[in-house]
């Protein structure tokens, strides 16, 4: 440890109460940013779960579709048109819609129905823990996530309920398919999805396109867009981005999360700046002595910057532990807080930047220190 680091370390630990206040400020600030950014990442991932899980190279959708949950409809005849386009291997319809689930006890709860043909690729339930996806082709069969059993008033495989006066039976149980809207997903076939959601039989919400092995996805996308009227054709990545952008920014949810994170940064910066400034004021005599014995300005700034860095490292480590704990606690929730390596690295950089920026006020104070004060004290 260099003498500069030792001096910075000792200056900090000399007043432990102030150090604790500084560290608490950093921890609260970084945990707040972690939660906000973790929610942002979790939300971003949750809103595109269905798109990520779908078996598709391209998505054909009604013009102006904003997100996966957008209930606009396509005419099924467009599917045959799409199948005739060069480079297209498969076109699988997906039907989505809201419906009312009537529990055996007679209460109702809204559900989000996702219909896809079981025999072909499309959008089928995943993380299956009981039953088989193929069994969804059996009349009345649906798939539901175990986390929603209480809401749906069912107990497990074989339990029955009603949608639109039609009996439904749990044939597939999944784990971890949570909806950020908290409305349970119910998977079934396209035909029954239409019935449950009250949609016309000649309609579908999306056509999921599989491109032939040797075909170029972008060229196929252009051909589909040019040959089918009143639709948009997006790659999976494009639809994912559009959906995420809609939920995060068009609804204002993302901005609210960013605003929370910004607030955390501001609060943290102010707390660290205030404590560093008061620490510097308390050690002004020492900085004046350093200046008097000939230290350069940069030498003194390094002491202050190291104080900020040490505070940042201690604060970040504690905040990271708290962040991981929160991440673990929310892992099974409808909106989990995500902690990725990139977020962790970003938070560390942010903590250091915040603390170093906080040192500016202290540095300005030291810049004005008059070394002659060593003679008067």
């Amino acid at each position, binding site marked *: 440890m260099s003498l500069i680091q030792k001096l910075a370390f000792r200056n900090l630990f*000399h007043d432990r109460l102030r150090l604790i206040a500084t560290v608490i400020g950093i921890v609260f600030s970084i945990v707040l940013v972690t939660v906000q950014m973790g929610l942002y990442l979790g939300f971003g991932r949750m809103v595109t779960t269905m798109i990520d899980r779908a078996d598709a190279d391209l998505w054909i959708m009604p013009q102006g579709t904003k997100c996966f949950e957008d209930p606009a409809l396509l005419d099924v005849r467009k599917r045959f048109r799409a199948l005739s386009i060069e480079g297209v291997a498969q076109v699988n319809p997906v039907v989505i819609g809201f419906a009312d689930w009537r529990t055996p006890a007679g209460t109702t709860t809204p559900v989000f129905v996702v219909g896809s043909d079981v025999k072909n690729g499309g959008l089928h339930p995943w993380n299956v823990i009981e039953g088989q996806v193929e069994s969804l082709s059996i009349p009345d069969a649906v798939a539901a996530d175990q986390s929603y059993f209480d809401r749906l008033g069912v107990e497990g495989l074989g339990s029955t309920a009603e949608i639109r006066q039609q009996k439904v039976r749990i044939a597939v149980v999944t784990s971890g398919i949570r909806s950020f809207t908290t409305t349970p997903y119910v998977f079934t076939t396209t035909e029954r999805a239409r019935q449950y959601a009250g949609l016309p039989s000649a309609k579908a919400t999306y056509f999921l396109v599989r491109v032939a092995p040797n075909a170029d996805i972008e060229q196929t996308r252009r051909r589909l867009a040019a040959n089918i009227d009143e639709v948009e054709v997006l790659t999976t990545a494009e639809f994912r981005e559009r959906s995420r952008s809609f939920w995060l920014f068009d609804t204002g949810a993302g901005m609210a999360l960013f605003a929370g994170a910004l607030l955390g940064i501001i609060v943290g910066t102010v707390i660290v700046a205030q404590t560093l400034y008061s620490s510097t004021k308390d050690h002004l005599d020492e900085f004046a002595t350093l200046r008097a014995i000939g230290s350069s300005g940069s030498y003194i700034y390094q002491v202050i910057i190291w104080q900020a860095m040490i505070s940042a490292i201690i604060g970040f480590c504690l905040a990271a532990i708290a962040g991981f704990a929160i991440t673990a606690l929310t892992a099974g929730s409808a909106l989990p807080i995500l902690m990725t390596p990139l977020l962790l690295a970003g938070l560390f950089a942010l903590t250091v930047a915040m603390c170093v920026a906080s040192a500016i006020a202290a540095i300005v104070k030291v810049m004005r220190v008059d070394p002659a004060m060593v003679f008067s004290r």
Partner: protein
Amino acid sequence: MTAVLQAENIVKVLGQGAAEVHALKGVNVSLGTGELTLLMGPSGSGKTTLLSILGCILSPTEGAVSVGGQSTEGAEPEELADLRRRNIGFVFQSYHLFPTLTATDNVRLALDVRGERGRKAVSRARDALAMVGLAHKLTSFPGQMSGGEQQRVAIARAIVGDASAILADEPTAALDSENGHAIMTILSEIASDAARGVLVVTHDPRLLPFATRIVRIEDGRIVSEEQGQAKRKVKANA
């Protein structure tokens, strides 16, 4: 004898407008190697202001200062700091040690600001502490030492970088007579180095026996300059 510090026609005006004070009014003074000069005068006579100017901490309003033959005229604060760390060692009335650092680290600080680091710096700091009789206090913190011991650490810090001028501001004012005597004995020893000069600001007449030269200042003017009672005993530089 070579002049390590030279001040010519120094005028220093402090404050502005109605609060303006002419602290120094055309002072000429120098500090040579091998001498211990006492700068004496009553409170408010301008002796600390003169010490600050000689130590390149304050800039004169008028006049010229040279350190080791180098003029300070027009020097920026960073250049003055560089002059200080290369040429001047300070001893302050209230020691100004770093309470969170050991005696060795306090002394090492004077080398660290010059970019001298590592084992050699530690070794030099220990040698300097041994020179002032504190070889047994290397790892002690200021709070664990007496006032006299703390002042000796401050002296070790002033001499460790081989400064040619040691400027001491009332170095014995906070000490009892026994410790004050011990400190002045050490400063006399330092002044006997052919490469160093020591300037001590004081108003304590008990220090007179240690001086090779006495400069008296009153109302911002040098009023007398005389030989001290001490004989110059210059040792050849090793």
